């Protein structure tokens, strides 16, 4: 597996609250190969954003704290690096774009200043050179009239343009890994499609790996090959996107897929998964999904199932598959 770019192994993230210590990410493991796109799906509060911030070592500490595990990037455990060494990796090898393009850019600097700043944080070049590289980046992400736009302030750009500027900033040093945390959630549907198309195109051009974090399985289907479903701080299912859509194994994934509105369906009401994500301080003793699961049995209430390899790169965390690894019900 020399192709592995990033391997997260048994990651444990805790948050200290006044009511106690909550384990927000509990034993999450996954890997991303060079040039691959991995999707991470889950409801809000499932730990997907915390996982991505942990990779960047940008978790607000305190209250957050990486309690265990390893995050190996190009053979190096990021958790062992000093803050100074981490600054050399952020933006240069691993970049991140965020959900809110409205607030993710600094309102008092032009987008050109902010992108140039990223470039000059890692490369010893003149301000003039950085500016011309910035204009090139803006052009690449499809911002019209980049030479003029470079001196615009964030408030002068639309949401979609701001997200493009964010992408230009994240990609300005051709990172090997881009973490996109809900990059299209705050955008209009038409703009969403444009941004996803842009990400797909750039990924091809730059041969970069992407971790795409979203709650929207539709977005995953557009962009990624492989997907990981998270629930209440754990991975519950991992599969190729096509396989997952064809036949979800985990009851939670099944519920998620059923919740996507279908235009050609005769169904009148949308499917909902009953109940709520359990609070991180009051997780059930057994399977974390058991209280909401239509198939829950006695064993599900008692013991948490392990992540079971199902062959073909698939794995699932559910008692249903204990005795029939080929997926029979």
């Amino acid at each position, binding site marked *: 597996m020399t192709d592995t770019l990033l391997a997260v192994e048994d990651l444990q993230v805790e948050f200290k609250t006044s009511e106690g210590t909550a384990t927000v990410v509990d034993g999450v493991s996954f890997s991303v190969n060079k040039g691959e796109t991995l999707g991470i799906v889950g409801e809000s509060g499932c730990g997907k954003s915390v996982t991505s911030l942990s990779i960047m070592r940008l978790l607000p500490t*305190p209250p957050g704290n990486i309690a265990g595990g390893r995050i190996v990037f190009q053979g190096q455990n990021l958790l062992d690096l000093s803050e100074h060494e981490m600054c050399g990796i952020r933006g240069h090898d691993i970049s991140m774009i965020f959900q809110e393009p409205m607030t*993710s*850019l*600094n309102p008092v600097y*032009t987008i050109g200043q902010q992108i140039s700043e990223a470039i000059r944080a890692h490369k010893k070049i003149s301000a003039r050179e950085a500016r011309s590289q910035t204009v090139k980046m803006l052009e690449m992400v499809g911002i019209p009239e980049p030479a003029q736009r470079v001196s615009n302030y964030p408030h002068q750009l639309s949401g979609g343009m701001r997200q493009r500027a964010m992408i230009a*900033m994240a990609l300005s040093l051709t990172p090997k890994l881009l973490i996109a945390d809900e990059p299209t959630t705050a955008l209009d549907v038409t703009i969403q499609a444009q941004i996803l198309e842009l990400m797909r195109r750039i990924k091809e051009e730059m041969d970069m790996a992407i971790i795409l974090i979203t709650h929207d399985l539709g977005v995953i289907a557009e962009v990624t090959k492989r997907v990981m479903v998270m629930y209440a701080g754990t991975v519950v299912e991992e599969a190729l996107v096509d396989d997952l859509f064809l036949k979800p194994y985990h009851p939670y994934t099944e519920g998620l897929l059923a919740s996507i509105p279908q235009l050609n369906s005769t169904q009148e009401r949308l499917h909902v998964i009953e109940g709520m994500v359990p609070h991180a301080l009051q997780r059930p003793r057994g399977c974390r999904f058991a209280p909401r699961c239509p198939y829950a049995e006695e064993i599900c209430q008692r013991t948490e199932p392990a992540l079971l390899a199902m062959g073909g790169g698939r794995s699932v965390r559910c008692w249903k598959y204990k005795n029939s690894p080929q997926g029979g019900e």
Partner: protein
Amino acid sequence: MKWFVVKRLLISLVLVWVVATLVFFSLHMLPGDPALIALGGSEANPDPEALAAMQKKLGLDRPILKQYTDWMGNAIRGDLGRSLLNDRPVGPDLRLRLGRTLQLIIPATILAIIVGIPMGVLAATHRNSFWDPLLSSTALLGFSVPVFVLGLLFVWLFGLRLQILPASGYVAFSDDPIGFIKYLTLPAITLSFGMLATVMRMTRSCVLEQLGADYVRTARSKGLAYKIVLYKHALRNALLPISTVVALQIGLMFGGSVLVESVYNWPGINSFLITSINLRDYPVVQGVLLLISILFIGINLIADVTYGLLDPKVRLD
């Protein structure tokens, strides 16, 4: 931005006129007749004819509206009239006294800014060490202690017990620069205390708020060092609300300087005002209040323009 400034200037002019008018009429509604006071007060029981003559001499026999239009007309031309007390022109005295008060207020403001902002940043970034509670409680003390108590405390401690600084008085800078600074130190520190505390608390809360903002996370995800993110990004944004607070505080400082001037015997504009009010010296009181209101409105104008310069959303509108 240009229109913004022009519009604000026009509004300011109207405001100054309204304030001047209000001052004029409210002053004339006060009981007490300057002519009577000039003749020794009601105890002296002056001859009614002498009183009428004095009123005529001081121009107080004119109808009030006439007095108002005369005064306003002259004021627009820059002539604030003559003191009823000693017939000296009001303008030069006003300039001299105001200069001395500004010599107090400007250093106090600078002190409050250059000490308050770094202290606020320190408190914000060391929220979990002893620095934050230490600085925050000191600031609370700065808020709560009245300026005259602090002033008297300083006079007693530094002026009388330790005798390292003069307890009160004033020397002109042109006469004795070092003496001026010695006399200035205690009153300026006393006056700056409240503003320093406010600026510190404001900086602390604004920087903390900005450090939690999304763009700070973006800046860090670019690989910028924490110090750069703190000063170039978070503090730069925090300066917007801080600048507003500073402007408001400069206004409050004129109030504070009344007490500070009186504790330290500083011959500024406030002692001038108080004496003139007691003697019903209308032209002087009107002149002082007109000047203070112009200053107050001017400072707010400068604050608005500064805010505009700091905030691209306003600057580019």
